[in-house]
């Protein structure tokens, strides 16, 4: 898959649904006590709606997952960077998109972004993948 990509190629779009129980697991793994990731009442008390807010670490995992699907080994992901621009709540649907910006003998560089299906950018990033 990676070997077929050249400058201007687009990444196959990949959709995810933000999952509430996954936030609880990540809270435990990260030892993150912030209740906005697991307690709807706490989210409501903050005036942020009534659904738990996804961790940034899960938001960044979605585009990384899209990259992992086009490489033979996770070792080929050499660099990933992103800027967080919006939040997601349980039940949101998101889509990862990407564009190859450069290819050389050793690496493929991409811009990658995550949007809500109903509109709105969640994060913008870039990545460098080793070709093999």
């Amino acid at each position, binding site marked *: 898959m990676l070997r077929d990509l050249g400058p201007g190629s687009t990444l196959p779009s990949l959709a*995810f649904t933000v*999952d509430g*129980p*996954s*936030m609880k*697991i*990540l809270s435990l*793994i*990260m*030892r*993150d006590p912030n209740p906005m990731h697991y307690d709807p009442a706490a989210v409501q008390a903050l005036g942020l709606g009534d659904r738990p807010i996804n961790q*940034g*670490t*899960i938001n*960044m*995992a*979605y585009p*990384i*997952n899209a990259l*992992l*699907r086009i490489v033979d*080994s*996770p*070792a080929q*992901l*050499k*660099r*990933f*960077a*992103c*800027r*967080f621009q919006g939040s997601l709540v349980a039940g949101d649907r998101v889509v990862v998109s990407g564009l190859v910006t450069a290819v050389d003998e050793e690496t493929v560089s991409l811009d990658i972004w995550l949007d809500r299906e109903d509109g709105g950018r969640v994060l913008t990033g870039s990545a460098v993948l080793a070709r093999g």
Partner: protein
Amino acid sequence: MSDAEFQALHDRVVGTQLPGGTFIVAEYERWLSHDALQSPPLPEGLLHPVWVLLGALRGMGITLGELMAIAEAGEGTMFGETELEQVEPLRTGVVYLVRGSITQLARRESRKMGPMDLMTFRLEIVDPTGAVVAVSVQVFIIPRRSGANAA
């Protein structure tokens, strides 16, 4: 916070070495985290690249709250940017060392948020042979609107 106060905070904070420490990821944590991250299947024992961030935070020897307190961060602090470099994938069952420091504190003015500081910290993950196998760079946004500071 005046310019002089910001400069004093900058000089005090930038270069602060974090205590550091170690972390290890058990197989059940790999399974559960990959499920939560909706990861595609990965080869046995290899960790999702998000673990560069998770492991670095776990092993840096200080909580995020304590780290933010160094920069006198108050309510509204947000995760702004992240960067990870992976020399090789992290693995379960390996004791990794984490070391790093606060590398930057920059003043910015946002139309929406008013004055804010961007605090950057960089953490290296070192394997048992002494090789740096991954690097995590995080930028947190610290609002400095009047009354937003903890200090």
